[in-house]
């Protein structure tokens, strides 16, 4: 009897403890609501963001992930870059001219640009950047493969020769970072060169970096060639629980999930920004492994059966854009709105499957082929997309297709995806989808350019259109070609885009309100400076 009583006491103590946490926490946010409304600040002295170690911010020291590359871009510049609409904008090169045959580009360099250590930036550095990065490949990007030769016309002008005409050549230059000759010329192991190496021409100088703590401090470069940086100092500090760190004011901006959005809504202290991204979940069909999937109308049936809008509502809680079968995001400049959409229609899916000879003779809900074999597929996904897979399984079951979900970790999924060891697979990725994945043209940058081959898809028309649009200089004609390409892809559905995610970020306008409307990454350069 006494034992029982003490147990009750303990349980009530625990309940009390949990309750008091909630209470304390509640108080905090109530307080926050009462603070006065302040106009958004367009400049700031110090901005703190969630850190974490993403490598030393040089083209060689960074880790191959987005955050590492964005920090490097605070320090380093490319010759030209592309803006949010894909237009070429000047950086270290101010003017450029293309020869009539499209094989030679002449670029004029910006004058009076200084490296962070006050040495002048000249055409020598450009040539060095070319030669050095050809010898030692940087972590990502680098000088485009197509470049045959780079030569200096004079101190402020360079000439680049390329192998064959490429309309995207200038925009490809945006991932080629200029590095100073006087710092790197004697470095033979660039991956291991991480002491006082972060000298660039960019808007920020690196003053502190700690690998073990995952901290960075960047200070505005007073001699920056572009406009004055709006934030004087950017600090990246470790944040275990980013939501708590943000609410305590330890970091000034945080990306949030829809679940906790209500904490910040209708509160003048906070501002929520929502971004549409091209990052998408996609469903891949392995036609090499399962010949049924090689049938066009079979894949169309799946496209009809999967209710993409419901997935957006249920899994992404409305914070996504339903996938377009033509792969490209509706906001993409080349988007073809006339391509087939396959609005959800289970009946139509069933009809298509019936017409292919799949019947449900014993009425157990699953279709069978003429040999009486059940129509069943294994769907490989990672833990992040397991819930998505569950709902897709329901949708396909309604149309008479059985799905067995195999949920594995991300790396395993990637390995199986690359080796073609799957029947159906859900994959999530960003990085500007340009349909190259569906071609059989080898030698394209992406390691997944082999996807078409691994999944057994081959359409010479797709390859031809893709190559043609790559060479097309007239934007209008290019859009037409891309439109045709999407039309074919949408009709054949070699892969089905499920949805494009939206990204949400919260900040305090009273601290800093200059966050970019175009890019959702808080550590992105455009948040702090206009070039």
């Amino acid at each position, binding site marked *: 009897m006494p034992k029982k009583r003490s147990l009750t006491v303990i349980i009530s103590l625990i309940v009390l403890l949990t309750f008091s946490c909630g209470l304390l926490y509640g108080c905090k946010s109530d307080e926050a609501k009462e603070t006065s409304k302040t106009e958004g600040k367009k400049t700031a002295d110090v901005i703190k963001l969630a850190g974490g*170690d993403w490598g030393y911010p040089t083209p060689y020291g960074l880790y191959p992930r987005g955050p590492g590359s964005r920090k490097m871009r605070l320090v380093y510049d490319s010759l030209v870059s592309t803006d949010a609409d894909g237009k070429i904008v000047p950086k270290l090169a101010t003017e450029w001219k293309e020869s009539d045959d499209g094989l030679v580009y002449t670029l004029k360099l910006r004058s009076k640009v200084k490296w962070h250590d006050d040495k002048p930036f000249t055409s020598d550095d450009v040539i060095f950047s070319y030669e050095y990065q050809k010898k030692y490949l940087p972590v990502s990007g680098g000088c485009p493969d197509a470049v045959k030769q780079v030569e200096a016309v004079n101190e402020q002008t360079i000439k680049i020769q390329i192998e064959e005409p490429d309309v995207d050549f200038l925009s490809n230059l945006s991932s080629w970072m200029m590095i100073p000759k006087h710092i790197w010329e004697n470095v033979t192991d660039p991956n291991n060169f991480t002491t006082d190496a972060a000298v660039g021409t960019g808007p920020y100088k690196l003053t502190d970096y700690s690998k073990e703590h995952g901290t960075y401090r960047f200070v505005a470069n007073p001699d920056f060639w572009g406009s004055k940086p709006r934030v004087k100092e950017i600090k990246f500090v470790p944040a275990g629980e980013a939501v708590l760190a943000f609410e305590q004011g330890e970091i000034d901006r945080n990306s949030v999930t829809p679940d906790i959005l209500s904490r910040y809504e209708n509160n003048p202290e906070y501002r929520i920004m929502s971004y549409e991204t091209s990052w998408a979940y996609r469903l891949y069909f392995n036609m090499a492994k399962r010949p049924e999937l090689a049938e066009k109308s079979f894949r169309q049936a799946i496209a009809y059966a999967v209710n993409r809008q419901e997935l957006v509502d249920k899994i992404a809680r409305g914070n996504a854009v339903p996938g377009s079968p033509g792969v490209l995001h509706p906001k993409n400049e080349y988007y073809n709105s006339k391509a087939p959409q396959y609005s959800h229609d289970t009946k139509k899916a069933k009809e298509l499957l019936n017409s292919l000879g799949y019947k449900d003779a014993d009425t157990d809900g699953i279709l069978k082929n003429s040999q009486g074999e059940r129509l069943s597929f294994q769907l490989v996904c990672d833990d992040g997309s397991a819930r998505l897979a569950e709902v897709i399984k329901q949708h396909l079951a309604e149309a008479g297709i059985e799905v067995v979900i195999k949920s594995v970790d991300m*790396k395993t999924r990637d390995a199986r995806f*690359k080796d073609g060891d799957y029947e159906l697979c859900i994959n999530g990725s960003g990085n500007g989808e340009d349909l190259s994945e569906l071609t059989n043209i080898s030698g394209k940058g992406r390691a997944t350019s082999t996807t078409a081959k691994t999944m057994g898809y081959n359409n010479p028309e797709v390859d031809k259109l893709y190559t043609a649009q790559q060479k097309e200089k007239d934007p209008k004609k290019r859009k037409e070609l891309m439109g045709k390409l999407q039309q074919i892809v949408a009709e054949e559905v070699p892969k089905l885009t499920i949805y494009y995610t939206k990204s949400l970020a919260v900040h305090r306008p009273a601290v800093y309100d200059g966050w970019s409307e175009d890019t959702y990454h808080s550590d992105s350069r455009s948040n702090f400076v206009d070039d």
Partner: protein
Amino acid sequence: MRQKTRTKFIEYAITIWVVITLNFLLPRLIPGDPFLILTSQDAEDEEIVLSEEQREFLFQYYGLDQPVYKQYFIYLRELVRGNMGFSVYYKQPVSQIVMHRLPWTIFMVLSAVFLSTLIGTILGCLSAWHREKWVDKSLFLFMIIFSEIPSFLLGLILLFVFAAGLGLFPLAGAVTHFADFQSGWEKIWDVIHHAFLPVTALTISHLGGTYLLGRNSMTTVLEKDYLRTAWAKGLPKKRVIFRHALKNALLPIVTRVFLSLGSLVGGAILVENVFSYPGLGTLMRESVRVQDYPVIQGIFLVVTICVLVANFFADVVYRKIDPRVSS
């Protein structure tokens, strides 16, 4: 005696070799490779997809294009020379990375061992002394419950109440960054301030075991004949408990201190991740995620050696404090 030392030494050597071999093989059995990055978890952590050319270059650069048995022999050869390899992801010699991180974990684990042993022993003695009374009963129940809460959960609760709710402690990290400290003391205080919650979480989760051991050991000792003699001599209570009883009850506790170091490192890994404490735990999680073979190998090797050294010390110290063993 000499024979014994030699067999002991061979035992340790074989253990280390087996561990090294396992460490080498296990990371390579994980599907994928360090340079296979096709997808990302979400739009925040957008992937940088390497081209085939870059992948090949990196494989070559890190010697991962060689057959596995060759890599193994190179690894062994380099280890003998004291070279733990070069990290694929962190781009630093593994020994350097581990040496930067190890002190934080050791600091945390040793503090937790010290505190949990001290508090656990005192409470255990208290419990044994008041056996079957309410003090013993309530302590027993409390300890059983607390020792069953996983350390990371405890860490989360502490983080929520004391750091987020009351704001008494920092949310994450091991030091205040970019701060100018006036004196060395201020810096030490800063480190303690940051370590307080993680160490507390680890201590509490470890307390139950020490308490139970202390309680049982003390109970057994209290029933021994020599204690009856001590009482009969009319010695004061304090003297009987602390001089006669505790000294003998301490033996199993001392052994446990050393043996528990290994399991505590395991607990520390989880707690470190809750507080993003810059120890080996956060490093281990990250390196497994990015499949950094050399770093994974290095961490496991260092942890293994730490545990073996602790075991060795347990042997030696036990022999020193218990004359019966060495005779």
